[in-house]
């Protein structure tokens, strides 16, 4: 065998603490090595050209590159050796950057370790065998989990690109948080007026199937061929018959149900359509409050329904779908301010969350757009906004900035001054984060044009106090610019609650086999260069499920994720990785241990004509984890490219050098 070795300097990354020339010189003495050199940047165009040229000139049949992590450049070099006519698996990489140069400054020992790693790579390469990928068909369909603005945008883009889309939403209607907002910053345009058309498009597009009141139950399979079980929660209404006329809602006698769409500041009926622009516009029964379902009496909705759509016996249904790719777009939920005793822990009705305030500002909200105090219905004349409630606060384990609260607070302060011209608006803030297009100008407008009083400091506590026209809330805070304690007697206090990962996000991540951080936000594959991919091939991220985001950023990321899905599913066939398990049928004793141990269900037992059994690997399902090969009692299953003999060749090489270096 003829092997070539290239030792990379990686500029100064490796060369500063490893003598690359010495490593190359040592490599020339290894068995089958006919050529070894060092190079400033092996991954550069000239570096790759050198590899290709050397393979041709010296008729090499294998190459070792000692450089960075295979995660960085393994594909680069595999393609390079392939261009020169070698099989891409006749290549080995020794990681002498992350595993050597970056972790120690001892040049002598670093050089020794780098040499050891190169020797291991050479020994493995000597027993490597060419491998060929197989190809398989893909499902040209995509599952999108979450029907907020990100999920809707991704669904429309994927459908536009010719894919069939399944859009799964937990609530009764798509629209998400954006559908609850009154206006949007920095343009003050009506939120549902801009979102509405997209919701209608998603509802009417023949390529998009909506599954609302639904959740993902189970995900199996692999890129191109995922199998998804979706639980369609019972609505007690046959949506094929329901026309959304709303007659049931008028007749329903259970009228004291907290209205979740209005952030529980108003009441609704047990059977209801969440909001006028709901898509699909269909009624659902809230089983916890329905008199018929809790007490067995009533049935008013069934009597009035003109299409006979009500079905009290309806059960949850689980459907199974096959898709080629999945986009997670589960968005966020908001910080629960009742955890904060200093802001009343939810005891003061006139301390409201920013999202409840949006509903109060909205023309379709419970107050028809008139700002009224929840306690007595009076119009507030002094409104205090408190920023960073559950953001940038380590004491409640929320050290991160939610990013958009500064902007919506400025918007709500402007709208307050607009709705009630003789009102005063105060904003307590720590820093103003307004780094979007037109954002800083918008915050300045709030202060200059709308005379919103910005106070730089946090609020320590809120307590009830008597006011001239009924109870008020004393807001005590600091003005750090003044260096003084300050207080404001407020009629209404709005808490700018921060973003949290969506309820149940970690559980969904585990079903999807993707990573999530300490706060439940899904992990992207690379924070800069692969921001919409996950580490599970075929699963992508859109919107705030990856980290707090405002509407423009969510929409942009949704389109990016859709672009990635379209690129992936534009191919009719995908190539499978040949680094998977392979059964040597002649050795297999059919004990079935591998079948039981495989976490992916990739092993089947096949019965031979004589009735004996043999294990068989389903190539497209196998993920190449290697658990089966260590389980097998007779070494009949081997992981391709990581066989026992290949790994032992590396171990032997290491042990031999260990003997030599420990002699002195």
């Amino acid at each position, binding site marked *: 065998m003829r092997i070539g070795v290239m030792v990379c300097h990686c500029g100064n990354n490796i060369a500063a603490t490893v003598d690359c020339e010495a490593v190359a010189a040592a490599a020339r003495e290894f068995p089958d090595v006919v050529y070894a050199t060092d190079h400033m940047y092996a991954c550069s165009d000239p570096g790759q050209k050198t590899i290709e040229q050397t393979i041709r000139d010296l008729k090499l049949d294998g190459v070792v590159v000692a450089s960075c992590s295979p995660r960085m450049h393994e594909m680069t070099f595999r393609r390079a050796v392939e261009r020169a006519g070698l099989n891409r698996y006749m290549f080995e990489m020794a990681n002498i950057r992350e595993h050597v140069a970056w972790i120690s400054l001892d040049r002598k020992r670093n050089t020794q370790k780098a040499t050891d790693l190169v020797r291991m790579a050479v020994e493995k390469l000597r027993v490597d065998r060419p491998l060929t990928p197989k190809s398989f068909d893909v499902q040209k369909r995509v599952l999108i989990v979450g029907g907020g603005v990100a999920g809707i945008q991704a669904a429309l883009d994927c459908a536009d690109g010719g894919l069939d889309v399944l859009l799964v939403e937990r609530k009764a209607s798509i629209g998400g948080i954006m559908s609850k907002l009154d206006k949007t910053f920095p343009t003050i345009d009506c939120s549902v007026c801009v979102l509405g058309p997209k919701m209608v498009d998603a509802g009417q597009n023949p390529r998009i199937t909506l599954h609302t009141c639904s959740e993902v139950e189970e995900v199996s399979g692999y890129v191109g061929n995922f199998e998804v079980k979706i639980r369609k929660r019972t609505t007690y209404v046959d949506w094929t018959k329901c026309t959304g006329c709303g007659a049931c809602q008028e007749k329903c006698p259970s009228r004291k149900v907290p209205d979740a769409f209005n952030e529980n500041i108003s009441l609704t009926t047990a059977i209801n359509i969440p909001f006028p622009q709901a898509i699909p516009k269909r009624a659902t029964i809230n089983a916890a409050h329905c008199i018929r379902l809790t007490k067995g009496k009533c049935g008013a909705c069934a009597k009035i329904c003109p299409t006979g759509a009500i079905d009290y016996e309806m059960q949850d249904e689980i459907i199974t779908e096959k898709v080629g790719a999945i986009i997670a777009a589960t968005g966020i939920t908001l910080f629960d301010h009742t955890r904060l005793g200093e802001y009343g822990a939810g005891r003061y009705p006139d301390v409201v969350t920013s999202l409840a305030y949006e509903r109060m500002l909205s023309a379709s909200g419970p107050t028809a757009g008139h700002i009224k105090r929840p306690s007595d219905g009076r119009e507030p004349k002094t409104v205090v906004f408190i920023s960073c409630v559950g953001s940038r*606060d*380590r*004491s409640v384990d929320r050290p991160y900035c939610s990013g958009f609260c500064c902007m919506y607070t400025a918007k709500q302060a402007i709208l307050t001054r607009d709705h009630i011209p003789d009102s005063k608006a105060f904003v307590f803030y720590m820093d103003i984060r307004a780094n979007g297009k037109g954002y800083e100008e918008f915050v300045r407008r709030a202060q200059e044009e709308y005379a919103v009083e910005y106070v730089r*400091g*946090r609020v320590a506590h809120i307590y009830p106090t008597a006011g001239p026209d009924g109870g008020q809330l004393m807001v*005590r*805070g*600091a003005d*750090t610019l003044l260096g003084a*304690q300050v207080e404001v007697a407020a009629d209404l206090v709005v808490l700018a609650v921060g973003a949290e990962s969506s309820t149940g996000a970690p559980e969904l991540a585990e079903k999807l086999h993707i990573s999530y951080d300490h706060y439940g936000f899904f992990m992207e594959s690379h924070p800069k260069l692969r921001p919409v991919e996950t580490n599970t091939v075929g699963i992508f991220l859109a919107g705030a499920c990856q980290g707090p985001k405002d509407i423009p950023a969510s929409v942009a990321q949704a389109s990016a994720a859709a672009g990635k899905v379209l690129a992936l599913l534009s191919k009719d066939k995908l190539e499978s990785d040949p680094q998977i398990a392979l059964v040597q049928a002649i050795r297999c004793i059919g004990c079935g241990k591998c079948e039981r141990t495989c976490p992916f269900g990739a092993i089947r037992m096949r019965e031979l004509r004589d009735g004996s059994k043999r294990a068989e690997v389903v190539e497209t399902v196998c993920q190449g984890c290697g658990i089966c090969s260590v389980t097998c009692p007779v070494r009949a299953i081997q992981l391709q490219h990581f066989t026992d003999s290949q790994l032992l060749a590396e171990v032997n090489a290491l042990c031999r050098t260990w003997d030599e270096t420990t002699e002195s």
Partner: protein
Amino acid sequence: MQSPLQAIDLTTSRDQSFVEDVARESGQDLRSCYQCGNCTAGCAYTMNYDIPVHQIMRLVQLGLRDKALSCRSIWLCATCQACTTRCPNNIEVAVVMDVLRHMARRAGHAPERLVKTFTDGFLASVARHGRVFEAGLAACFALKSGKPLQDAGLGPAMLSRGKLAFLPHEPGGNGKAEVAAIFQRFLKDQESGK
């Protein structure tokens, strides 16, 4: 001291050992303070302070030793711990204030003479009797403060409610000796420079 109008040179006026001493003695991560002002917002005594507590934290961050140790605020702090409770960065601000008081005494700063007089009298009373003897402490403070009749009006009311005893009520058993031993140990540690 610098005039308030004079610019503070942030490089030359920084006393890094002061920053490190406060951090070590208090056990607090002073760098995590981002000056939100919530300690001042919740402070019960800030109206009497010469420097609000969040600015004292800033003086410590910048290593402005003399300014921090010579202020009156650290002596007026009631250690009610509102600042500690409110701090979003889990800094025990009240502990920092306490450490500053100790450092100020060691450096000979005591701008609130009466606070020092009272504290010294209180500790002397505990050292002598094993627990505080209120009437003795009040009399001692009245004499040393130079305003002997300032609190005299409270006497009859407290007496009639049984809040003031004429004789010290010392702890029984070994209590008195044990408390005295604590004081002895402290003085010994101080002498040996611990």
